[in-house]
């Protein structure tokens, strides 16, 4: 069976994990980090994209083309209140697409959110591939439990654009519970998953049932706040620092982007430190300057002060916990375990509040940044057959029904129903001799049809003319494990049937997705070429640097002829490095390495001689092992030089 990777596609950070034997393993990306910022940037001058850390690093220079928190937009309409709120917060442009969806504008090009998220997913895919040394085509991707069908479908589309077949979309709290669940003892239990990430807060109540020795996961209820996360905590600290700085120096640096950037970092760093320490010093020398000279920020922040700054934010998370418990039909005492997910839950105050609300100690033995990806990988393992004895049940986040007489919603499937599920109900006509009915599929909890989200509609025609109430029309809903809804209506008398598959609600047509896939592929090629160019340029820079250094160090030991040859080669390489022609640079790098073989050899001999004298003089202090160590390193050096 092919390998199925698990991806936590987060609002601020994403994480990828695989099953390695019977253990899930988080994979480090090419920069060596276990999570990757969900940031995509398009550079202004060159037509290429950056993902993750590099996109984050250049954000200041290119804010309008640096796209982040795309998860808040994916699968949403432009008129959605969340989108409206986001528009005021982000520096990039959000536009209304022809179909009413929220799209973003980057480099003057209107792009659908799934195409942006696909860039992040592609990076996660490559991360897994470079670790595994094989192509990965299948994935499990997690989404918040409250995501509706269009958001789920849009996330699936993103996977498709990234070249991944999304085997399953699973809920983040379910994944987190899975990450904890495998090592657990058997028995029924109810779990609260408290997920306070960088940009969003979610709480879900999950039931793990022991069915014939198999663990069954079921999401009972979910709630949260899309605009509450660790970054809000950072902002509070930042505001505090701004105030204090103003008090100390009388200067307001709120408009100074460079100072703000440094304050933001200092705030985050202080916050992290205060999770382990009672107080921390914040030192920002030369933060700004006025006519009297440079101004420094220098203050001590205590944990107590931090807690007072963010207390109301923490309290804000408790209300959704209450609602979720109520929706699940439970009291606080019914929860057996609390799982903490998201980096912000490392804050002791958050843990205390959660504990005092639920009355149980929160479990934190799985890294809160990685639990969701690990759970996704486990689910991937289940799907590929690597992991057995776990059965996963998801629920519909919202009720489903159809519009009936008087424009009211008649629910066929209640919210929080375990999927896959089926429901059937017989309806009839409202008028005498009515020959057609319209089946209008709705999602939501409201009574009035117009207040709920319309998922689609279709007509069933050619119903034999009869007095109202006589024809029997069977409407059936069928939701599969991926949350794809099939709705059918059948006239029992004639057997005539009409149906609709509700899944294309991400707002993208197949053609559009295909176009995005090919765009993404051509981008990948360009990126690859660019990467190669950068690598060879770096290699050239390093070689010049090393050679010049050797020339300088060796001084008279280099013959005039050698020197002039090498210097000429350096000159040519420097010239080539100014351009972007990979082949030319490669040739020049080669000729310089050839020209410098002699001096590299001499430099090496010198270095070895120096190392020997050094180790001799060190003998009084160091042990023999150290000497051996030094020589070993020199041998390594030699190998490196040979490679160049």
């Amino acid at each position, binding site marked *: 069976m092919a390998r199925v990777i698990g991806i936590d596609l987060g609002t601020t950070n994403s994480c990828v994990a695989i099953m390695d034997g019977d253990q899930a393993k988080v994979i480090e990306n090419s*920069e*060596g980090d276990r999570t990757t910022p969900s940031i995509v*940037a398009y*550079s*202004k*001058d060159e037509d290429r994209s*950056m993902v993750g850390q*590099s*996109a*984050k*690093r*250049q*954000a*200041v*220079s290119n804010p309008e083309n640096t796209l982040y928190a795309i998860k808040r937009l994916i699968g949403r309409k432009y008129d959605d209140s969340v989108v409206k709120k986001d528009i005021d917060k982000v520096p990039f442009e959000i536009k209304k697409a022809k179909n009413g969806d929220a799209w973003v504008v980057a480099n003057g090009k209107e792009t659908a959110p799934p195409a942006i998220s696909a860039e992040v997913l592609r990076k996660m895919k490559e991360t897994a591939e470079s670790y595994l040394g094989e192509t990965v085509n299948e994935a499990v991707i997690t989404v918040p439990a409250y995501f509706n069908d269009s958001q789920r479908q849009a996330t699936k589309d993103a996977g498709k654009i990234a070249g991944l077949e999304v085997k399953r979309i699973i809920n983040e709290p379910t994944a987190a519970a899975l990450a904890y669940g495998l090592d657990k003892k058997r028995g029924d239990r109810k779990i609260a998953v408290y997920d306070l990430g960088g940009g969003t807060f979610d709480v879900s109540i999950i039931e793990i049932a022991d069915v014939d020795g198999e663990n069954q996961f079921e999401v009972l209820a979910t709630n949260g706040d899309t605009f509450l996360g660790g970054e809000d905590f950072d902002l509070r600290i930042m505001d505090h620092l701004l105030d204090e700085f103003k008090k100390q120096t009388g200067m307001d640096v709120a408009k100074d*982007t*460079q100072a703000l*950037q*440094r304050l933001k970092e200092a705030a985050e760093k202080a916050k992290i430190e205060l999770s382990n320490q009672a107080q921390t010093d914040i030192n920002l020398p030369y933060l700004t300057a006025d006519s009297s000279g440079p101004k420094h920020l220098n203050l001590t922040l205590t944990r107590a002060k931090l807690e007072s700054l963010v207390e109301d934010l923490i309290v804000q998370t408790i209300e959704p916990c209450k609602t979720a418990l109520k929706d699940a039909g439970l009291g606080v005492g019914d929860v057996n375990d609390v799982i903490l997910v998201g980096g912000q839950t490392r804050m002791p105050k958050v843990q205390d509040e959660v504990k005092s609300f639920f009355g149980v100690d929160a479990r934190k033995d799985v890294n809160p940044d990685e639990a969701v990806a690990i759970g996704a990988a486990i689910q991937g393992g289940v799907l590929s057959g690597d992991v057995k004895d776990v059965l996963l049940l998801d629920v519909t986040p919202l009720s489903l029904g159809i519009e009936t007489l008087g424009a009211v919603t008649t629910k066929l499937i209640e919210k929080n129903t375990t999927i896959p599920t089926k429901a059937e109900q017989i309806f009839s006509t409202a008028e005498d001799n009515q020959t057609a009915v319209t089946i209008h599929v709705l999602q939501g909890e409201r009574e009035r049809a117009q207040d709920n989200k319309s998922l689609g509609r279709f007509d069933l025609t050619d119903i034999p003319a009869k007095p109202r109430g006589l024809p029997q029309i069977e409407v059936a809903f069928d939701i599969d494990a991926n949350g794809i809804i099939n709705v059918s209506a059948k006239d029992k008398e004639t057997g005539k049937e009409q149906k609709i598959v509700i899944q294309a609600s991400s707002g993208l047509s197949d053609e559009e997705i295909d176009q995005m896939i090919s765009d993404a592929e051509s981008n990948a090629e360009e990126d690859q070429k660019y990467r190669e160019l*950068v*690598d060879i340029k*770096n290699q050239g820079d*390093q070689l010049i640097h090393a050679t010049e250094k050797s020339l300088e160090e060796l001084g008279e030991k280099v013959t005039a002829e050698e020197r002039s040859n090498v210097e000429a080669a350096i000159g040519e390489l420097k010239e080539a490095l100014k351009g972007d022609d990979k082949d030319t640079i490669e040739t020049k790098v080669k000729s310089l390495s050839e020209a410098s073989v002699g001096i590299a050899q001499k430099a090496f001999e010198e270095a070895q001689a120096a190392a020997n004298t050094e180790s001799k003089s060190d003998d009084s202090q160091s042990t023999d092992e150290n000497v051996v160590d030094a020589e070993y*390193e020199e041998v390594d*050096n030699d190998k*490196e030089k040979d490679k160049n």
Partner: protein
Amino acid sequence: MDSFELGVKVDTSTKEGVETFIEGQTATFKLFQSVLDKFLIETINPENMKYDPELHEVISMQDSDDTESGYIIEVIQKGYRLKNRLLRPARVIVSSDDKS
């Protein structure tokens, strides 16, 4: 580390003490630099070079008459890399394109 510890012990209340201390610091710095060299840790100091998001983090943008846009005006903090692995990006101020 040993040299740093010895350095801290130097009496800096006298002028000679301060001079010894500075001398010691300079030597320690060189020693440390050679350790970095030995482990192939390279300093990233991209003054006047073109901005590269793989290696540099933009702290701010500034107009500059002398520097072409997209090039680095000032390195606020040097970065380090071990072969191709970035240990810490250099933090830089980049020249902006709007020439006012």
